[in-house]
């Protein structure tokens, strides 16, 4: 086993469960319980990637989710996962791990030539340098795309299925370290329903890395006992491998749970991850704290590691991340690491402590063990190229203290609470000078506990966790009188931290000193940003890209706050921290999308005749969520030919259209007529039962909102048709007026769009077809005239037949219950065969209505069109008020040069104008060219044997017959046309009255 840095004993790894995975194709030997990072270190792999901008060699800095360097690519093909942290990815047999952001290979990196040629690219470089000359941008872009690589996306659609869970609980505990476990136990014992989540594979957090004891047990053993107690509690949901990545208003917390982490690439599993949407009543925030890095030259060298991470690798994974260590600290924590190193047999060559007189239990123990301590000393530079080889020490006054050889340089600049979730929701935080960091302020429903409060010792974490859990349960209304006792740990005497941000004097000028390792933001970059006036922390962030990597600046931001404060001579509390945003850690897009993909992304609505249309060879188009038959080509027919055939069939014989998608609303009640009078521009109260009327609905701004026919079914009941795509908005609009404004009206609205299918028969033979299909409705013109409706049966099915027409032909729209609609459709089709019945789709419907100059809301209108603009001023009642009426007399509504609906006939009858084409008086090269209007609808009309178009043209109605030109995009030509009345066919309307 080639694990030269594996300790011979200790750790929580299972030595009897060896496994093997690959890193860049090279075999890595590991044990179950390892992370990818711990296994790499055990195998002596310290170089894990190259940096974002300068391609400097980088290694593991931490042992957790805060790492800025350890991003790797997992697996290959469609299941590959980019931007995964080696430090939190469980080692699994067969896993393929690759480095990211080095080209062409990790050891030989061509891109570092970038770094050699221009050693340090200043912040703002992208804004300043690469903008000009613009013609070179494609070159820059090509180069930057290579440079900015952060792993690569999968090369095919993700085969995995992702689930989402909606969950509720009394208390959500985020983090299952000492405080989190204590809190979950206390909440559970108080009778609360608890969800407890931790991003690691095992609960325990820092307990798994420490040699301390809890309730007399070694800390990891106590964590195991607490975990199994929670797992077996019926009201507790314990979620390991689960990152709480977002906290939103109403305390919605999103958790990303990684599943099947023991299987490489999740191969063979159905679901790689699932997102929990949790709405807890109370939250215990036990997210811990991140150790803060320190500034010195070359502080990014592999081998420079957070002190706490060294302890974790030693104690939890039985890995020595180096063979000779130097520690650099401004607080007591690094002494614990020094003792851990000494216990593991790794010599500690020196501890440089910023503080002049470190006292407290831990420094005392280190002194007893004979570890050399340099008080009032700092590390100012790391030597070595691919890895740390020595640390250069100085006194605080800048006096050199010599260079100490080491391959491991542990740093501890104190601890910054992981308050990201808390801050995401905009909850307040306060500067805590004791720890020189921001800490969350508790609120009535968020209870911080443990290191996140700034109290770093184990005994406090256990105490705080217990009381936070109990308090949260009580606030959630769960109190069973039980007062949980806090687990006990030894109280330690610690000495205070000494804030340390910048190296003394000129040493702060040494290059390079990295503040943000992921984004390669240096101390010089911060200086430049401040010098150029970008001094607010949010401006610094945007100018330098500080904290904008996938690590979200977990290590960089707390350091930057202090550094900027010192550079500006200000109080860190006033500098603040950049706004924290979800996601805390990268989450797969697939997990966020869940099942809302493919056919489930948006429902597809079809009519009962869908399968008939399909077997008839229909092509379909999407109309909102509806899939509608577009046209029915015969074999070998083009769309143009099919539509022409369908149009002529309706004009000369008979066509059948599935118009079930129309919105249908029943308006019922004693005041239904009054209500329609208010929402429609024309009068309704006197419409006799059995009759239909076309109506226009306006917004209060006077613009056309919807149109359609409404029939009076009986004295207190109307059936309103809306346009297909406006069915839901119209219903909502009507309900709003009824419920919020006209609460005195006794009117009830019911959507019946889905209940009634609508089959349109159109054409001179439609009456014959209806008769042949069998109906008890008298069909003679005198019994059933235009704009009336009759109830009866069609093909044996109860039906409402409306003599209304969207084609200008004799036409019946037959409403039948949806479950019988296919039967009626087939009966009508069979009955129509002798008459040459032809199914037609939406395209033909559009051509036929355009020949008649009928508008379509949303095509001729665009929210800025009044009834008069489209020639429907006659529908405006003078005798009553209606919604939007007052707006029609606003000066802008009566301008004579408003765009008005006209027809356009091209000089070349074969040429069809482009819809949307600009209409001008005189073509030319002048810019801007004054525009008269635009083409709204344009088709070839088979019955007229020429092209026709509808257009909205300024002042067009008063100038019918004028010469106009329409722009074409594809051949840059202007097409000459003349305006005309917008009704092209049967202007008297004779054909629909037969």
């Amino acid at each position, binding site marked *: 086993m080639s694990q030269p840095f594996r300790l011979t004993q200790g750790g929580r790894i299972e030595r009897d469960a060896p496994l093997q995975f690959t890193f860049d194709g090279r075999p890595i030997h590991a044990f179950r319980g390892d992370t990818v990072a711990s296994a790499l270190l055990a195998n002596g792999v310290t170089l894990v990637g190259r940096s974002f901008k300068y391609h400097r060699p980088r290694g593991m800095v931490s042992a957790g989710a805060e790492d800025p360097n350890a991003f790797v690519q997992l697996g290959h093909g469609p299941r590959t996962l980019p931007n995964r942290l080696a430090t939190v990815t469980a080692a699994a047999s067969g896993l393929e791990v690759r480095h990211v952001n080095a080209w062409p290979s990790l050891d030989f990196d061509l891109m570092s030539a970038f770094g050699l040629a221009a050693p340090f690219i200043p912040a703002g470089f992208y804004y300043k340098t690469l903008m000009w000359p613009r013609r070179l941008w494609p070159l820059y872009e090509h180069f930057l795309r290579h440079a900015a690589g952060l792993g690569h996306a999968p090369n095919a659609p993700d085969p995995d299925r992702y689930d989402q869970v909606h969950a509720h609980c009394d208390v959500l505990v985020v983090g299952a370290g000492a405080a989190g476990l204590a809190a979950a136990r206390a909440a559970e014992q108080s009778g609360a329903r608890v969800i407890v989540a931790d991003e690691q594979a095992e609960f325990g957090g820092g307990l798994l890395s420490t040699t301390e004891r809890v309730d007399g047990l070694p800390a990891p053993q106590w964590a195991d006992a607490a975990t199994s107690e929670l797992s077996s509690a019926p009201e507790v949901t314990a979620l390991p491998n689960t990152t709480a990545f977002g906290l*939103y*208003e*109403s305390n*919605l917390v999103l958790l990303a749970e990684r599943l099947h982490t023991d299987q490489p690439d999740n191969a063979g599993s159905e679901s790689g991850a699932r997102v929990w949407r949790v*709405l807890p009543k109370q939250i215990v925030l036990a997210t811990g704290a991140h150790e803060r890095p320190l500034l010195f030259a070359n502080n990014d060298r592999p081998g420079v590691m957070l002190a706490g991470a060294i302890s974790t690798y030693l104690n939890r994974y039985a890995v020595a991340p180096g063979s000779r260590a130097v520690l650099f600290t401004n607080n007591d924590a690094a002494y614990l690491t020094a003792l851990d190193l000494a216990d593991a047999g790794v010599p500690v060559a020196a501890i440089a402590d910023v503080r002049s007189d470190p006292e407290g239990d831990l420094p005392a123990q280190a002194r007893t063990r004979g570890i050399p301590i340099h008080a009032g000393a700092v590390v100012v530079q790391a030597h070595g190229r691919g890895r740390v080889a020595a640390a250069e020490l100085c006194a605080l006054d800048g006096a050199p203290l010599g260079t100490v050889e080491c391959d491991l340089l542990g740093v501890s600049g104190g601890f910054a609470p992981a308050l990201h979730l808390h801050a995401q929701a*905009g909850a307040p935080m306060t500067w805590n000078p004791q720890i020189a960091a921001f800490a969350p302020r508790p609120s009535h429903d968020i209870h911080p506990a443990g290191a996140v409060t700034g109290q770093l010792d184990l005994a406090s974490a256990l105490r705080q966790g217990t009381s936070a859990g109990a308090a949260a349960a009580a606030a959630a209304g769960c109190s069973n009188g039980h007062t949980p006792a806090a687990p006990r740990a030894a109280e330690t005497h610690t000495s205070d931290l000494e804030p340390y941000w910048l190296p003394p004097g000129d040493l702060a000028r040494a290059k390079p000193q990295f503040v943000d390792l992921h984004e390669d933001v240096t101390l010089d970059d911060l200086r430049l940003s401040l010098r150029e006036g970008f001094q607010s922390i949010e401006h610094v962030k945007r100018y330098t890209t500080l904290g904008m990597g996938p690590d979200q600046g977990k290590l960089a931001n707390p350091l930057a706050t202090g550094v900027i404060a010192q550079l500006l001579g200000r109080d860190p509390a006033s500098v603040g921290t950049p706004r924290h945003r979800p996601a805390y850690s990268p989450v797969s897009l697939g997990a966020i999308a869940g099942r809302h993909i493919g056919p489930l992304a948006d429902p597809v609505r079809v009519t009962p005749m869908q399968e008939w249309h399909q077997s008839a060879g229909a092509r379909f188009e999407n109309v909102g969520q509806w899939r509608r038959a577009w046209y029915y080509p015969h074999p070998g027919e083009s769309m143009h030919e099919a539509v022409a055939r369908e149009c002529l069939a309706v004009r000369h014989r008979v066509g059948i259209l599935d118009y079930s998608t129309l919105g249908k609303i029943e308006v019922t009640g004693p005041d239904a007529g009054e209500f329609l009078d208010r929402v429609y521009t024309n009068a309704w109260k006197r419409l006799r039962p059995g009759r239909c009327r076309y109506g226009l609905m306006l917004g*209060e*701004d006077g613009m056309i909102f919807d149109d359609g026919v409404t029939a009076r079914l009986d004295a207190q009941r109307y059936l309103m048709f809306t346009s297909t795509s406006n069915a839901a908005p119209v219903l*909502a609009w009507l*309900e*709003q007026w009824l*419920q*919020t*404004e006209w*609460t005195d009206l006794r009117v009830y609205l019911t959507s019946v769009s889905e209940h009634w299918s609508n089959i349109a028969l159109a054409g001179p033979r439609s009456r014959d077809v209806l008769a042949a299909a069998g109906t008890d409705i008298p069909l003679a013109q005198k019994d059933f005239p235009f704009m009336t409706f009759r109830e009866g049966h069609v093909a044996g099915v109860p039906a409402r037949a409306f003599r209304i027409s969207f084609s200008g032909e004799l036409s019946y729209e037959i409403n039948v219950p949806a479950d019988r609609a296919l039967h009626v459709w087939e009966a009508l089709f069979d009955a129509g065969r002798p008459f040459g019945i032809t199914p037609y789709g939406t395209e033909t419907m559009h051509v036929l209505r355009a020949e008649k100059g009928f508008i379509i809301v949303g095509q001729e209108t665009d929210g800025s069109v009044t009834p008069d603009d489209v020639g429907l001023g006659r529908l405006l009642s003078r005798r009553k*008020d209606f919604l939007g*009426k*007052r*707006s029609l007399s*606003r*000066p802008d509504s009566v301008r004579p040069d408003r765009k008005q609906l006209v027809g356009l006939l091209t000089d070349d009858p074969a040429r069809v104008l482009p819809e949307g084409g600009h209409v001008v008086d005189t073509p030319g090269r002048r810019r801007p060219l004054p525009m008269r209007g635009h083409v709204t609808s344009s088709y070839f009309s088979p019955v007229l044997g020429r092209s026709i178009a509808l257009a909205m043209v300024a002042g067009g109605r008063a100038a019918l017959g004028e010469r106009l030109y329409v722009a074409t995009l594809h051949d840059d030509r202007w097409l000459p046309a003349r305006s005309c009345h917008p009704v092209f066919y049967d202007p008297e309307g004779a054909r629909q009255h037969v």
Partner: protein
Amino acid sequence: MLLIPCPWCGPREDDEFTFGGEADIPRPADPAALTDEQWADYLFMRDNRRGHHREQWCHTAGCRRWFIVERDTVTNEILGASIYGDSP
């Protein structure tokens, strides 16, 4: 995410609802009697209040009822909900 307390259905996630803008803007009884300015004020002008705001919501994907929500526009805290016709 806003948890909106529908007076009829209880607290539900905001994607079940449609926002209807500021509440308490009655339609003028006689629009024809208004000047253009007065009508434009009713039609277009809203307070865009910072802090306590009474606004209309419709439980579109639920009971379809419109009601009034009181919300702090700074913190997004929901302060209450009421049915039309009930005094605030």
